[in-house]
């Protein structure tokens, strides 16, 4: 595995190029010079809530997974993020229109580590957090790694890009809690079977903590590595505030505290002390 070092971020005033509602999510395409160019799957960006022209009233940043980077509208590397409007900040983001400006910092954090050999991979994502897995799948296929995808969601409206998934992966398993599409149930229910069938060497996961914990356990049971992209509440998202502690075990076996933003978001699943992590039990 080539370990993912931290990427070097930039802070820019970006512009909304497009905003499109798909199911329960808004897909925002941003022009944010320098962010897309530095992107690696698993990194994220942070946005400020509120127009750059109007003072600072909401000070915490909103962290968003980078879903796609592509040339669009004459720009070399636009970035697409997926927003689920659940609070005042994400609702503000969902209300942005083409031409609106937004302060963007990114890409932030350590990306997914990529295998050097063409090993079998399983990618697991739930809800909008599956966003970074699609570009990861592309990179893995470039390395001749077979890719199996597991997508989960509470319902069809919160299932990200299931159609695109079928183009990206060799096999796709879809699970929804209400059974509106795919199998009814939880991601955890299908993991053992998928990992066994795929002969997984590496499992990549992005989603709520219980999903990541289940992936880490299943991967360990199958003798596979796991790379888990943690989603913790972040305040600064840049490593400055020490507000997003993740209990981990170091290479030396000593218990430590990592920062989800700067030391993560991607951490080896076997290094996270899941039982000590807030939100580990749903």
């Amino acid at each position, binding site marked *: 595995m080539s370990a993912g070092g931290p990427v070097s971020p930039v802070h820019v005033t970006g512009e909304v190029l497009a905003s499109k509602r798909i199911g329960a999510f808004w897909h925002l395409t941003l022009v944010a010079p320098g962010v897309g160019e530095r992107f690696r799957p698993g990194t994220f960006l942070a946005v400020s809530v509120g127009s750059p022209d109007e003072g600072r009233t909401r000070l915490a940043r909103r962290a968003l997974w980078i879903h796609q980077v592509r040339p669009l509208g004459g720009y070399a590397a636009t970035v697409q993020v997926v927003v689920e409007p659940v609070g005042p900040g994400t609702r503000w983001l969902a209300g942005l229109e083409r031409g609106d400006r937004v302060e963007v910092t990114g890409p932030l954090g350590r990306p997914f580590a990529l295998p050097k050999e063409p090993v079998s991979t399983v990618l697991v994502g739930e809800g909008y957090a599956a966003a970074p897995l699609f570009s990861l799948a592309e990179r893995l296929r470039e390395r001749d790694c077979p890719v199996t995808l597991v997508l989960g969601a509470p319902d069809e409206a919160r299932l990200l890009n299931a159609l695109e998934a079928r183009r990206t992966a060799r096999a796709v398993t879809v699970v929804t809690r209400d059974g509106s599409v795919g199998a009814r149930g939880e991601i955890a229910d299908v993991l053992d079977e998928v990992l066994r069938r795929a002969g997984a060497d590496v499992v990549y996961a992005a989603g709520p903590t219980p999903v990541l914990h289940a992936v880490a356990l299943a991967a360990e049971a199958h003798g596979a590595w796991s790379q888990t992209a943690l989603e913790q509440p972040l305040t600064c998202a840049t490593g400055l*505030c020490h507000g997003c502690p993740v209990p981990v075990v170091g290479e030396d076996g000593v218990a430590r505290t990592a920062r989800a933003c700067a030391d993560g978001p991607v951490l080896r699943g076997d290094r996270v002390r899941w039982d000590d992590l807030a939100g580990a039990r749903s």
Partner: protein
Amino acid sequence: MTVLAGLRLASPVVVAAGCGGTGRELAAYGSLDALGAFTTRTITLDARRGGPVPRLLETPSGLLHATGLPNPGVDGFLATELPWLLQQRARVVVSVAARSLGELAELARRLGTAPGVSAIEVNVSPPDTGPEPELMSAREPFQVGAAVAAVERELPRGVPVLAKLRPDAVRVVEAARAAVEAGAQALVVGQALPASMPDGRAAGLSGPAVGPLALRCLVEVLEAVDVPVVAGGGVATVADVRARLALGAVAVQVGAALLHDPTTAARLVAALDPDTTSEETPDR
């Protein structure tokens, strides 16, 4: 040229304790040697893991924080964080807090003799002291004086002690006088305000919300003492900095604004540099 307690600073813009990470994270947005100084997160004698989550919460125009002051302890700081900061040619002010006066003295001995430490800032009244082991947080002026004296006694000449005071408009002048009598060579006015998390945990409140309160404290302290004063609390814009310098502060500390926009310090440094003609966009 900014001179603070005998230290010549490259800029009047100083990064406040606990808002610049280890320095490495901030360096991505501007070189640290251009800053007036980099104040470290508060360092304690023993390593601290910090408190439970949530550690920070957004409030209207403010940030509530109850981090529990996680840090690698003085040994870890001297081994891993200070050398890197000095490599960047940053002017390093080390913020300290302790469980006892004896621990403060020990910290001062260790840090005061470490090459490259420019000054010690005593975090005399951290607003969030827990979880265990709980840190001292001065409420009375005599406690402020005792904490400053414990550090001052141990420092070699040329390493000044700064006292960071709680911006309590009613008591701040008494605290300032006590700190100066105890040997503080400069004061920092604008610690976070004592506040509370929704669950009742002790916390600090920072950001633009506390700016006017900290400014009142600054004005009263400037009238009462003769040592240089660094202004903190809600500093985010060039206008904020200019207002404080015009009132008589020798420098400003930028804290919570960095958590919202990590380029804030670098932007302010550039905008205030008399050698550059860069047009800073008016207040944002």
